[in-house]
């Protein structure tokens, strides 16, 4: 490792009362891969946004090859060779790949865009790093993985030699993530320097040379990858020893939910094809699958927001036709949506309103909302589930992701649901929060709740589920017992390799 190419020196940044970055220093060598690790809200994105000029730091500076970057100027950062792949994609969906890549790269007042030269350059970069995309495709038509590639291409096209990736794998499938990391390693060998942010310790251990841990806005540790291990990193992040809980043996009860031969189409595309499964009281059934294969549809169907085309849903042995949200709530089905910001909570509403919104019949009389009892309910959730950062009347937007997830769990688990539907319950959460969520799910299982766990995280499913089924291209595999599962076996299942029939897996 040679000279440091990038130095972040004593950067601090305050948002209101919140010290998001507190005197953080960081350096990056040529060809090095540094992983930035930390809990939700630790300040990782903030630090990278300062580096890229989105935010102006309150104090401190950024040096690239010894020269100081002017603060708050993304242009200057780009010129200095910094490329950033944002946590939330920043692409214009109606423009083509080439347009997205080219925008802002030429002098604005040029009389003509150098489209053909740009096309050639993009092609060269694609070749060199093995990132193929169609330059004239409309970005909105691309898959998430392809969009991720466009984000990286944007940075490379600007001749970035320092590449920053903020949670690049959060939305990628395992396969895509693996491919991404092998590309990143190639890049490092070619002399690019990289910083990436991730909550997934496996990735971090596999890809990074060096790991920097932030906690509460401060840098708390810096380790070489070869000198540390996952357990230590988890502890450094959270500040205490965390262990994910594991399920203890139990005997499941009667079947509470049976899905028989159900198909669902959306916009004319059949998303679920004749699926069958049953769920028993006191068990966790894990459904795994690469995203895009129908688990979102399945979650929506059972949440009561989709209609089925054929087949039967049997709740406690009774066929119920189509399930509506009201039915679901009344029947004691708790629902944890996969996207907590979009579906799980309404940020601008108060915590108590989010707590009661889906169960308004219980908290209203003659069409009038019973505010006191709603607020009392929210107070109970806050106490029982350790929701930090707000009172019942606080705007929900102000909660961090982890605390918002606790609120959602709480409103569903407060009433001891008979069935709990949990879609990606720990996605994007840090180690501490993941452990807390898992603990709650297992607690519900102990209390006799039937838990349907839909997840892309194999480790999570293996730790929590009693039985596992895979969903591939809208079809559901037969269940296997979790004890007989291994990562390889599950990987095969997710690729559609199960015994009865041979399906072509969803192309990605």
């Amino acid at each position, binding site marked *: 490792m040679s000279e440091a190419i990038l130095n972040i020196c004593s950067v601090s940044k305050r948002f*209101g009362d919140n010290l998001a970055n507190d005197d953080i220093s960081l350096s990056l060598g040529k060809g090095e891969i540094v992983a930035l690790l930390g809990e939700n809200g630790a300040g990782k994105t903030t630090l990278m946004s300062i580096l890229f000029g989105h935010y102006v730091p309150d104090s401190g500076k950024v040096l690239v090859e010894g020269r100081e970057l002017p603060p708050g100027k993304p242009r200057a950062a780009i010129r200095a060779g910094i490329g950033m792949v944002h946590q939330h994609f920043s692409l214009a969906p109606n423009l083509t790949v080439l347009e997205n890549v080219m925008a802002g790269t030429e002098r604005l007042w040029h009389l003509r865009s150098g489209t053909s030269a740009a096309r050639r350059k993009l092609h060269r970069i694609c070749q060199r790093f093995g990132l193929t995309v169609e330059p004239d495709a409309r970005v909105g038509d691309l898959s998430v993985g392809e969009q991720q590639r466009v984000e990286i291409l944007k940075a490379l096209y600007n001749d970035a030699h320092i590449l920053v990736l903020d949670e690049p794998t959060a939305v990628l499938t395992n396969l895509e993530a693996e491919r991404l990391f092998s590309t990143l390693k190639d890049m490092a060998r070619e002399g690019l320097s990289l910083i990436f942010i991730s909550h997934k310790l496996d990735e971090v251990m596999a890809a990074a040379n060096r790991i920097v841990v932030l906690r509460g806005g401060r840098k708390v540790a810096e380790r070489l990858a070869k000198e540390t291990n996952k357990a230590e990193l988890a502890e450094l992040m959270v500040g205490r020893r965390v262990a994910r809980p594991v399920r203890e043996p139990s005997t499941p009860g009667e079947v509470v939910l049976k899905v028989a031969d159900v198909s669902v189409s959306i916009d004319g595309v059949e998303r679920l094809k004749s699926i069958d499964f049953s769920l028993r009281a006191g068990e966790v059934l894990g459904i795994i699958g690469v995203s895009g294969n129908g688990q979102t549809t399945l979650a929506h169907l059972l949440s009561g927001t989709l209609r089925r085309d054929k087949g039967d849903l049997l709740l406690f042995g009774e066929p119920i036709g189509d399930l509506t949200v009201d039915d679901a709530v009344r029947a004691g089905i708790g629902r944890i949506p996969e996207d907590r910001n979009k*579906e799980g909570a*309404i*940020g601008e509403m108060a915590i108590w309103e989010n707590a009661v919104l*889906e169960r*308004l019949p219980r908290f209203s009389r003659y069409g*009038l*909302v019973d505010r006191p009892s709603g607020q009392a309910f929210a107070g109970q959730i806050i106490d029982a589930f350790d929701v930090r950062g707000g009172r019942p009347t606080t705007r929900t937007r*102000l909660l961090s992701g982890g605390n918002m997830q606790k609120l959602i769990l709480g409103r569903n688990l407060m009433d001891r649901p008979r069935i709990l539907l949990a879609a990606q319950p720990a996605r994007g959460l840090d180690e501490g929060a993941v452990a807390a969520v898992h603990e709650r799910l297992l607690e519900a299982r102990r209390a006799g709740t039937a838990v349907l766990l839909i997840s892309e995280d194999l480790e999570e499913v293996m730790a929590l589920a009693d039985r596992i089924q895979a969903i591939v291209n809208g079809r559901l595999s037969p269940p296997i017992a979790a004890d007989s599962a291994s990562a390889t076996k599950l990987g095969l299942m997710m690729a559609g390799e199960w015994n009865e029939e041979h399906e072509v897996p969803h192309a990605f």
Partner: protein
Amino acid sequence: MRFERREHRSFALVIATPVLAILCALALAGLLIAIAGAPVMEAYWRILVGAFGSRLSATETLTRASPLILTGLAAAVAFRAKLWNIGAEGQFYLGAIAVAAASSHLFGGLPPPLQVPLLLVAGAAAGIVLLLVPLWLRLRFSVDEVVTTLLLNFVAVLFVSMLIDGPLKDPMGFGWPQSQPVADAAVLPKLFARSRLHVGLMIALVFAVAVHLVQSRTVFGMQSRAAGLNPAGAVFAGVPLGRTLVTVACISGGLAGLAGAIEVMGVQGYVTTDLSPGYGYSGIVVAMLANLHPLGVVLAALFTAVMFVGADGMSRSMGIPSYIADVTVALSLISMLTGVFFTQYRIRR
């Protein structure tokens, strides 16, 4: 420089900002008055006198505020649910013409206690129908309603113009394009003799309180707010999105149509194409001034009416061009909007 959202607003700020905004608008208007060569201080005094100085001016201010409260509520209700109804002007006109048509062709013979409510309902219904079209386009084709509701305003006024030039033309109107008048039994009672102030003001106030209660206390109010803030979240929580939006549209369009109805039944007696001096459009600004709060709408409508009637009267007593009234209203609306912004955000370096 950037703006940061205030999580807490001090009471002093909430009071001080609008005061500052009004002062700012008055200062600018004063500049224009001075350019016209009139004494500025006296002009300010005349604005006050023009708005409250006599029984006439006070009742006129309230008369003008009445339809503004209703159109302001129409916008506030819709905007809360993120239904961008820019079409209150058109709904106002359809409400008005529906009243005129219904009174002269359907209910004309009925006694007041029957006819008045029926006509109010007819006016509201017409407003609703006009708003349901863009809502349908939005729900069915995801067409943005800002542009469609805006465009339908012009269609509605042309449609009214066609009716009062044709089937609804008043045969006693000496050929002028105006509708048949509402029946005598349909005229809203006056609140004071020798004034134009009519019970429409009471109707508007009742609706402001009703809308406030509905929004803050009822299940529907909470659901419509959720639908506006985050449709996906609302659907997940079991809010029937389409039904909620349709209900919101019915309230919003109905209020705008009602505004047209009371204006015809309380003030004008028949419909012409200049029945509204932009009540629908001003209603939107009124709603924004009120931060979409129904009770705030009452204050904002009063403020707008005071500014207009006061400045209009001032122009007459000072002999300066009467356009100063609209200029003053526009200036005060713009500076109030800016002021409201600064109660929500602070400047940070």
